[in-house]
């Protein structure tokens, strides 16, 4: 796989395959193409060369079917400021084909440490709390492949620990997680791989 943005070749000759239960930590200096790689893997961006295959089939050919197996969380939250946490969670899940009740959404946000703030408009929440609302989707989405881009920024220690346990559980269930982060992120279980992009 290779990626070109503008005139710059970010990476080329990249080739890897992942098995269920794998965790990949994606590192590299700013501008090395971490976000571009994740956007290629989730299908938002077309690779300049090569292709992404899911269970042997090109994701471009799988189309919408692929999106039932992958969840991408970018550094933009994907949270509507005017909507409350519950509304954000319910709507984004409904659009992903998983309708959840208001009680379920409230419980999930409680797990994410937002108890008592579920019905506040997201614009009143802090940066870290909005990130928690976005991450709450991971609990209910039920997808196999998680692509997380710089999701740990502005999260406190407790939240990072929570995400770590979520990912560990996900891997134990045969899921795959690819996380781009600058922070040290150690998992207790699962097979951990590192992918370092250079400039």
């Amino acid at each position, binding site marked *: 796989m290779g990626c070109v943005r503008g005139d710059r070749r970010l990476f080329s000759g990249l080739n890897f395959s992942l098995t269920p239960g794998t965790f990949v930590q994606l590192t590299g200096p700013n501008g090395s193409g971490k976000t571009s790689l994740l956007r290629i893997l989730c299908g938002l961006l077309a690779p300049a060369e090569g292709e992404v295959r899911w269970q042997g089939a090109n994701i471009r050919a799988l189309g919408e079917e692929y*999106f039932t197996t992958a969840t*991408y969380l*970018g550094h933009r939250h994907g949270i*509507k400021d005017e909507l409350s946490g519950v*509304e954000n969670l319910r709507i*984004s899940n409904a659009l992903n084909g998983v309708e959840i009740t208001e009680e379920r959404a409230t419980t999930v946000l409680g797990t994410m440490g937002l108890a008592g703030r579920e019905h506040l408009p997201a614009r009143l929440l802090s940066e870290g709390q909005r990130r928690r609302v976005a991450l709450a989707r991971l609990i209910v989405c039920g997808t196999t492949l998680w692509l997380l881009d710089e999701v740990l920024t502005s999260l406190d220690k407790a939240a990072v620990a929570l995400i770590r346990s979520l990912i560990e559980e996900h891997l134990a269930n045969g899921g795959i997680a690819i996380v781009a982060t600058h922070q040290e992120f150690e998992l207790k279980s699962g097979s951990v791989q590192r992918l370092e992009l250079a400039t």
Partner: protein
Amino acid sequence: MFRWIVWRDLILAWRRRADVLSTVFFFVIVVSLFPLGIGPETQLLRSIAPGVVWVAALLASMLSLGRMFANDYQDGTLEQMLLTPQPLYLLVLGKIVAHWLVAEIPLVLIAPVLGMQFGLSRETLLILFATLLLGTPVLSLIGSVGAALTLGLRGSGVLISILVLPLYIPVLIFGAGGVEASIMGSSPQSHIYLLGAISVLSLTFAPWAAAAGLRISLE
């Protein structure tokens, strides 16, 4: 799913009422300036009324088009929508329906009231209402293509106008033409049929084109 996207956009519009109201006020003010500027010459006012109301409706929808995808683009919800296992044209259609309900329907409802300033008869006001009701979906549909293509560009507001206003010309001709026919005392039927045909045509193609435009804009 379609229900959810329309519902979502309606809630968002309700929580940002000021945006919707500013479009309506713009429409009211532009239409009202003409009788004030021209003076109480009933004959002249009556003959320019169809064109004035229709052109004002086109300009007012320009104001709201820029917001159709731009807000969702900025906070990242649009890229999440592209990653849902739903056909993108359905999502786009949902947003178009919501835009029509929020930005166009108020104009359609208030237009007959404004038409009274121009001394239009009751039958003509009814025709004005009918042509707007049939024609405004086209404004949202064609506008969505322009909004999708100019997403994330600098000065996209002006660019949308340049891109989309020429495409509105057929709607303007048949919409205003229908009202004019009614003023002249002839039947506006043919105009209304043609408006309906344009609506169906753009309903068929615009969501696809807008979906393709979004994919390009988000790469």
